[in-house]
């Protein structure tokens, strides 16, 4: 029963549009997370002294701490953005496509 619907979905240009938008978004966010993590790993490997810079004059906490926390919190916020956009904008488009196909 589904084969016919799948065919209709594929024929719908809006499916290609949705698919393109959604994957570009997912790849972009993946790239941001990976770049920030492996960027930090590069610092660790090749310029560790950067991460040893104190936050404030005479303080003991180094910028390694907030940078690390920023990666964790930042990538979590990105998941929030992803969920928000997927569950809103993309799902709406998706539902319309399904409705058209099952007509």
């Amino acid at each position, binding site marked *: 029963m*589904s084969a016919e619907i799948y065919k209709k979905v594929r024929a719908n240009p809006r499916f290609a549009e949705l698919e393109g938008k959604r994957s570009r978004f997912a790849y972009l966010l993946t790239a941001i997370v990976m770049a920030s993590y492996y960027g930090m790993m590069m610092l660790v490997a090749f310029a560790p002294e950067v991460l040893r810079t104190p936050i404030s004059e005479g303080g003991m906490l180094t910028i390694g701490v907030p940078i*690390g926390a920023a990666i964790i919190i930042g990538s979590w916020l990105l998941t929030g953005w992803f969920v928000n956009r997927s569950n809103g904008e993309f799902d709406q488009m998706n539902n319309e496509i399904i409705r058209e196909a099952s007509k």
Partner: protein
Amino acid sequence: MIKHKHLLSAALLALASASALAADAVGVAQKQPLNLTAIGMFFVFVVATMGITYWAASRTKSTADFYTAGGGITGFQNGLAIAGDYMSAATLLGLSAMVFAKGLDGFIYAIGFFVGWPVILFLMAERLRNLGKFTFADIASYRLDQGTIRTFAAFGSLTVVCFYLIVQMVGAGQLIKLLFGLDYATAVVVVGVLMVIYVTFGGMIATTWVQIIKACLMLFGGTVLLFLSLSQFGFSLEAVAKKAVEVHKDGIKIMGPGSLMADPITAVSLSLGLVFGTAGLPHIMMRFFTVPNAKEARKSVFVASGCIGYFFMVVCALGLIAITIVGTNPEYYEGGNLAGKMLGGGNMPVMHLSKAVGGNLFLGFMSAVAFATILAVVSGLALAGASAIAHDIYARVICKGSATEAQEMRVSKIATVGLGVVAVLLGILFEKQNIAFLVGLTFGIAASTNFPILILSMYWRGLTTRGALLGGLAGLISAVTFVVLSKAVWVVVLGNAQAIFPYEQPALFSMPLAFFFTWLFSVTDSSARAKIDKAGFDDQYVRSQTGIGAASASAH
């Protein structure tokens, strides 16, 4: 120095088993006097979860209820359960111990274990939910040859489940001996029996709720501990750091990247193995089938990564605080010698910290949480193993879909009991063995066998049955070979002087091999089966993107 190095590698391994407690991390623990507070609190946990199991049993009627709670878990609940799978005794003990010993290095490692979650969400969560029904093999064999790939994927799952169960069982025995003062064998049997009861009677509903409760207890315990210990420093992280730098033997060095990160290849290989190994663990993937739709699946990763990220930061802060509070108190060292061995082993700082700031009652609470953690994880593993046996091998491959629901349920329950018996026996058998290599093996196989097949079947039209099988085998063989040639087996178990493979995690090398051979044997495959495999991609693709035809929640 050598002892110090050993402690580090032990902490690393503890961490490597992100949702396990590597037995090596605890070592062959010294039995402690009976801790009645801890046992009492654990007893309360058991009574509460038994009540839930009783309730869940009345709601577990179909195979869908049993394997996936009928798809009736909400995104938020599932997020907590996933977080529970990831916030293990090993992260609590191992991660804090790493920060305790090495400062910022431990935190940098923690980030490597976190960043996998966003990526799993962006690339996999939705497709997993839309394509899967009960098991990981459902997805892997969606358009490929059922007999071959389902069998291969099911055995892949079972191998991972069994190795991981041994790791957990041995870890449970050692930890409980240490924290509760119970006998090793008693501890292993208690874990095995409780696990079988949760799973056979309560199925996925009970397993999920045990995990949710445990996750909440863990978050609560960690937060209270952080609050209590920070209050001693006027709630200033700068004050904590200042004091830690003063008393730590490495001084200011602990606030920057140090020796632990001297070998970035190991670090990257470990993080690859963890990120993609996690995505290839059958009991984690299974969680994506328990929510009603892709929307909830996405939400659950958002909740899970929030909890995990928060917990990791708390645990790292606890490690830093322990440097001052535990590291300068002779009471926590053997013979009161601050330069000597810590009581109970190198992974105990956070437990000693609990005692130092919260007294015996709080230590008992944290010990009970650690035990509950292991119980929750083994239950998930047993369920994943039982579904691979009953759903994939029995119902789909042997009976070719003709088994009735009642028959499949019976097989799954027998399989759970069987897994329980095997787990207890192997747990006792491996008590004195060094099983650190099993952690590398588990994650190596998950990352190099399960994960490549899974991701390629979802993303690459050209994947064929032959490619998946031979590529998967290449990943399996190379992961096993690298682990055997690494220090954990070649030196520690087999007694050779020098490891042939210099890294602890095989993923950086075995994953590319798996991908390469999958590609090679797929593109050169011109069989009739290959045409069917590729032709199936279009429909699978539409389903994975839109959710049309996806298994839906059963009505309750």
